[in-house]
């Protein structure tokens, strides 16, 4: 298993690494780049804790081999936080106590942002359905649905005020 060179863009920075072909992106983000905001809950694609954005699409970093990301653009919770893109979602999660232990939260926020970009005015049902690949053991989901709905409403109000 010879390490292979990998060059990709992570949160706007170009990164060059040597990685074992068998390693998944989640491990490389966490271990090689110290981006520990991406969490691992199952490493078999079920829990959604490791969700990140790859070339604009959300993917499970535990199911993505790092070497598949050559030339790609990766965004993690750290990048989305610093750019301010999800600031309103984060604020809504905080105000609604939509996280307890917080381990699912980065994946939830990345997934919720994906929904809101596609469907700015989702129903509660649609929110629940879109988040159905993200496991949360603490909250029971109700507060998370509330927080995403509140963010959607806030963005819509802002949009119509601007128009």
């Amino acid at each position, binding site marked *: 298993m010879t390490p292979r060179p990998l060059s990709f863009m992570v949160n706007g920075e170009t990164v060059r690494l040597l990685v074992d072909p068998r390693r998944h992106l989640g491990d490389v983000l966490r271990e090689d780049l110290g981006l520990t905001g991406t969490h691992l809950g199952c490493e078999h694609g079920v*829990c959604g804790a490791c969700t990140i954005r790859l070339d604009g699409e959300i993917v499970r970093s535990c199911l993505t081999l790092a070497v598949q990301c050559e030339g790609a653009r990766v965004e993690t919770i750290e990048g989305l*936080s610093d750019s301010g893109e999800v600031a309103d979602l984060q604020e809504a999660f*905080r105000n609604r*106590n939509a996280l*307890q*232990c917080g*381990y699912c939260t980065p994946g939830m926020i990345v997934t919720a942002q994906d929904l809101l970009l596609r469907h700015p005015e989702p129903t509660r049902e649609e929110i629940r359905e879109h988040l159905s690949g993200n496991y949360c053991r603490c909250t*029971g989901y109700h507060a998370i649905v509330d927080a995403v709905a509140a963010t959607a409403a806030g963005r819509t109000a802002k949009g119509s005020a601007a128009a």
Partner: protein
Amino acid sequence: MSAKLDTTGPTGLSELDRPNSYIGRSVPRPNLTRLTQGRGQYVSDVVLPRMGHVAFVRSPHAHARIVSIETAAAKAAPGVIAVVTGRELAGVCTPWIGVLTHLKGLKSAPQHPIAIEKASWQGEAVAAVVAQTRAQAEDAAELVAVDYEELPVVTDMETALDPGTPVIHPELGDNLAWERLHVAGDPDAAFASADHVIEATFGFGRHTGVTLEPRAVVADYNAGDGRLTVYQATQAPHMIQNILAKHLDLPESQVRVLCKDVGGSFGIKVHVYADEVATAALSKLLRRPVKFVADRIESFVTDIHARDHRVKGRIGVMNDGTITAFEIDDLTGIGPYSMYPRTSAIEANQVVNFTGGQYTCPNYRALARVVFQNKNVTCQYRAVGHPIACSVTEGLVDLAARRIGMDPVEIRRKNVIPDDAYPCQSSAGMKFERLSHQAALEKLLDMMDLEALRADQAEARRRGIHRGIGIASFIEVTNPSAAFYGVGGARISSQDGVTVRMDAQGSIHVASSVTEQGQGAEAVTAQVVATAFGVPIERVRVVTGDTDNTPYGGGTWASRAAGIGGEAAWQAGKVLRGNVLSVAGAILQAQAENLDIRDGLVVDAETGRERMPLDEVARIAYFRPDTLPPGVQPEFVATRHYVPKRYPFAFTNGIQGSYVEVDAETGFIKLLKHWCVEDCGTILNPQLVDEQVRGGIVQGLGPALYEHCLYDEHGQLLNGNMADYLVPMAFEMPDIEVGHVSTPTGESELGAKGAGEAGTAGAAAAVMNAVNDALAPFGVVLTSIPMTPERVLRALGRV
């Protein structure tokens, strides 16, 4: 929503109405912003210099003698630091036995951090490989050749005590770990004279916690200091300190346990796991940091499981609805060992203690038997015993109501302990200070709008859609005193301590012995201290989870952090206020009792007029003490401890309601809506209480419908991964309405009781009753959870 404090409580509640009080307000938790940004620090994130990673070789057999272990190939593999067997590790770590003296007769066998002679469940560690990376450790673990001689496997708890069944630990004589018989009143006479006696057998599948962050520990033995520092996601740092010191032959003062962010606990992370002790022992042996993070497959076979009870229940009832007797025969399989140090007999004990506890019925017989089997160990998980006691009680009550043609609400109205009957004692001997079953029931009916629901149900029935309504009242044990563990000889503290300190800018530093795993213990502590002392909450910083830097205490489990840790924080904050005011009085030449601290300012207590800011008091005390009058020595630090004394536990109560739809063709159950009313006494932070209840309910709904650790007859776990073990996800879960009745405990000034397990206690019972209501026209009753589609269809005779 805002909660109103019940100011009619028995003691000192007016104290809570201090100006700018945060008590009863939904203040957001201070640590959330960091967690939403992915800037938490969980144990899985911890990296230390020279750190090795351990992977365990685990037994593929449920019961097997270890004949030999060949490690040469593994030792030669790339990156490998050491390969260690149980026998080698025994040189640095002594074994333990998970018993408590107050659970009379409880027995278990000595357990080693790594198995030596034989493996007793599938997944028990038999060797450890430490390497530079986890991947290398796992690669090398595959090269460890273990020769096993398979032994007969005991899986079925029903036959575990049969004479023909092999005994797992021959030295113990049989597979019975513990048994308890409790009789109150005259159950035989009551059953004999009851108008009706109804029997049912209830089943509670094994399930587990599935914390999203698996168990994790980083142990760092520094041979230079002779000191072990352990980063561990645990609910009880001082307990872990004690246990590691004891078994690794270190003084407690040479063991520091640090608990940072924890990715979910729920009781899973309050126990002493063999592989975690092994990690600490490996660090001592190898004189370098060692990290262990369970992967998901390991979690399923080694995180404690819960429940696995079969309960035969009987209820006696008169034609007028009076319940005259309860009887239960509980059998539970706990795996091959009683877990250390809290034991695996507590759940059965609580089933005996809580069954029928909502009702006035004086006649009760309970038998509980706890047996060994070759499956993963079971132990205390959120709402220990509660869902079992509640489902059996409330299931029987519904069956009794049905038999005599009484409304399920009416039979409860008639039999619950009246709100004016306290203090009193249940037939199991539980002491109740003051509960509110009647008020909670009426409030629930209001919230559910039962009439409208029944109309909807009838209308749906006409369209061939089967909807059902279920309710279930419950009691919950919180704020435990030493009665839980201390009296049984375990060094598990039931008291907690809080130290508060004013810094040079007038900010407050708080160190509490309770821990934070997401329930908001730090936030509540900050609210309480800010209120007691008199500063804006932004000026309070709370530290938990560090045995070097917090007072000694129990931690966070059994719904105790707010009620016990909160009261210690309240008392400490008040003492510090007094200390600061006595110095301010000396500076201002005023009587301390005429001053107060409000919003960070020293003010006249009478008028609220500002006298001086806190940072000015701090400046003088810390930098110009020479200007203070002679004899004035500022003590801007105070510590208080607290433990409830009058009652062994603060019982709370509540009631849940469920509305479901059952598809009689597919067997699928859809949760339409769920309600809960609970009474945790004084509500310190309404939002946090509500979310504890909601999260708890969903942890009860999962096992009601989906969660089940399925073993085959060879003791192999068949669904030990997240794809096959079904957990509740957002789409299947209903919206949950939460309401409150507030009956503060008179034991403490705050009056807070616990709320963390209320949701889990009653959720399954409410759903089971709702499902049976939906299926009533078919004349079938389900009494086993999870209520899978297959079980529904079987009950309906359709498969």
